[in-house]
């Protein structure tokens, strides 16, 4: 099979993994080498679904011994199969890279023969790139669930980021939809990667000569809508992954129906708005100081679809408003609907020079449409009459169609965390 046919099969098969970020690593070039990694990540192109293309995202092979119900590459699926040689992958990566098509490589795979066998093949490929071809661009490697510890330790020496996809938020759903790959295996791999990142981090701090290990850390993916688990379960898991295992990113991928398997819900369309709300909630956890239990409860375990989660929180916590623009601290400003990280920073910087009023906020680029209901510009402590819950609910409700949410999500990713360029894809998983 020629390389063009292989790229068709193995590129298409990989697109259902949402992660495509090239940020988090500032790997420098080496003497006689090619490439470096840009800390903020760089987007090179955008596909017709509006997703950023930053890395060459391919599977080493789409052969797989497992039969996960939600996956397009599952064993029982009747699709053409192919395998790349390490040289073919290196050749594509280097030649695309030097033409500035990509920032680097995203290498995943089906599980061929066994997790260790597959992982060894992936490591051979990446080693070839780093050592012989002297490639110093970004490499994101997937870790096969169940991979041996020593292979994880080896992979991290060559990759900028490692990831193992959890896919389903509870072991019960995993047991139902991916029985070969019981829930504990993938969580084990996630924990092992986390431990390796932590231990090598400590070594690096004590001795400069200690080798770097996955400088851009670990990420994972959760499929939304393939199981009955509510948003609360998903967010609680994400929060634990961030706080306890120090993951850098959790990606959420709206379930796209690919088979008539009765274990999977028969939904007419992928839950795109729900996916969007989860990304917004994820941002609140990571950049706005929220915790999952502030946003959701057992009684109301799902994020409202018609309103962004911060606005919903504000409506349920009106006693915290209005906020005085000229006195509130950064953390408090972040809680105001309509104020993002950038606006909050600008307010803090600008008010050192003069008192701010509505006009000055507009000049700073703050969008007041929603924020004005929650702000005050003087020190009066009593509640202003415009904090009527019904009026506010109407002002905060989001009535746009789903495609517009996609746009907002992309904008959120590009502006929401101080300018870091992070690209997002969606959809489901290969493995």
């Amino acid at each position: 099979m020629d390389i063009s046919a292989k790229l068709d099969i193995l590129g298409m098969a990989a697109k259902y993994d949402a992660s495509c970020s090239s940020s988090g690593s500032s790997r420098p070039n080496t003497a006689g080498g090619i490439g470096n990694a840009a800390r903020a990540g760089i987007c090179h192109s955008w596909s017709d679904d509006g997703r950023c293309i930053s890395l060459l995202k391919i599977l080493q092979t789409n052969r797989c011994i497992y039969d996960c119900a939600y996956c397009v590459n599952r064993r029982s699926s009747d699709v053409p199969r192919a395998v790349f040689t390490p040289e073919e992958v290196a050749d594509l990566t280097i030649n695309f890279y030097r033409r500035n098509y990509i920032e680097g490589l995203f290498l995943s795979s089906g599980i061929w023969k066994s997790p260790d066998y597959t992982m060894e093949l992936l490591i051979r490929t990446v080693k070839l790139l780093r050592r012989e071809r002297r490639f110093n661009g970004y490499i994101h490697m997937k870790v096969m669930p169940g991979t041996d510890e020593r292979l994880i330790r080896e992979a991290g020496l060559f990759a900028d980021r490692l990831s193992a996809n959890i896919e389903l938020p509870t072991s019960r759903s995993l047991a139902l939809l991916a029985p070969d790959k019981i829930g504990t295996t993938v969580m084990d791999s996630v924990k092992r990667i986390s431990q390796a990142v932590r231990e090598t981090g400590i070594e690096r701090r004590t001795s400069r000569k200690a080798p770097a290990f996955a400088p851009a850390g670990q990420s994972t993916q959760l499929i939304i809508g393939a199981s009955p688990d509510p948003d609360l379960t998903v967010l609680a898991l994400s929060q634990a992954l961030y706080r306890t295992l120090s993951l850098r990113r959790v990606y959420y991928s709206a379930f796209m129906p690919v088979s008539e398997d009765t274990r999977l819900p028969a939904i007419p369309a992928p839950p795109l708005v729900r996916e969007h709300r989860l990304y917004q909630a994820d941002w609140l956890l990571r950049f706005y100081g929220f915790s999952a239990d502030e946003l959701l409860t057992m009684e109301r375990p799902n994020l409202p679809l018609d309103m962004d989660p911060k606005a919903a929180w504000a409506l349920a916590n009106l006693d915290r408003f209005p906020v005085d623009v000229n006195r509130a601290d950064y953390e408090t400003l972040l809680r105001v609907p309509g104020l993002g990280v950038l606006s909050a920073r600008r307010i803090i910087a600008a008010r050192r020079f003069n008192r701010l009023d509505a006009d000055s906020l507009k000049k700073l680029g703050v969008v007041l449409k929603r924020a004005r209901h929650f702000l005050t510009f003087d020190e009066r402590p009593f509640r202003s009459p415009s904090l009527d819950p019904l009026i506010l609910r109407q002002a905060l409700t989001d009535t746009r169609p789903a495609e517009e949410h996609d746009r907002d999500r992309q904008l959120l990713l590009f502006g929401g965390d101080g300018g870091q360029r992070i690209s997002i894809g969606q959809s489901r998983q290969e493995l």
Partner: protein
Amino acid sequence: MTVYLYDGSFEGLMTAALTVLRRNDHVARIEPEGNGEAALFDEKVTIAARSEDSDRLVRWISSAFSPEVTARVCLAFLSEIEGMETDILRYLEKGRAIGYRFHLALGDEAVLRLNRLVHKVTKEQHRMMGLVRFSQLGSGVLYAPIEPDHNITGLLAPHFAKRMQEEDWTIHDRKRGIAAIYRSSAKRWDIHQADMHGEPEFSGEEAAYRELWQHYCAGMAIPGRKNLKLQRRFMPRRYWKYLTEKEGTYPPP
């Protein structure tokens, strides 16, 4: 209202700005000569570039404020937006009036105007770092044509010099007739005048990689999530002219 004319160079602009600041002329404008925009009753004064004056002003900006402010002034100059010279002048006047951290007074009109210019330039610079596309020529040189809104070639060159240090490459601003040329033997880049005659000849294997990339990009989109509006928002059509994956789609029918 006095209009000060300069030769279009950064040195010329700094000389003119120093002259205006010394004269304390608060209603002056600075414009490139040959502009022809000055109204009938404006007094016109031509200022010739003087490197001593230009250096003096730049040193003053860096020490009275910070090198960051100097960098912002340079970036605003590279925007090449009409009126940027006067915006820069007002910015420096404001700095002189307010003092040390004036560039953080985000609510001030003059500071805001200059920041907007800087933002345009850095935004395009970052975008272009991703959108520049090289093609391998028969000679082995990697050639990338661009037509940016702002004069960012010199801002792109250091990035590629680091990343592609063992390659010979050229980034050619076809709109302005200048090119950043890097040769791995010399390990440095320079800006040259470069007017285009004819089209460059690709190497033998170039076509194969172009096709691989085009197929790959076409296959990446997930059919159930098509959103061309979103795509164009991040990748405006005017940048499609030299994108390998968009070959054949520009200009739009």
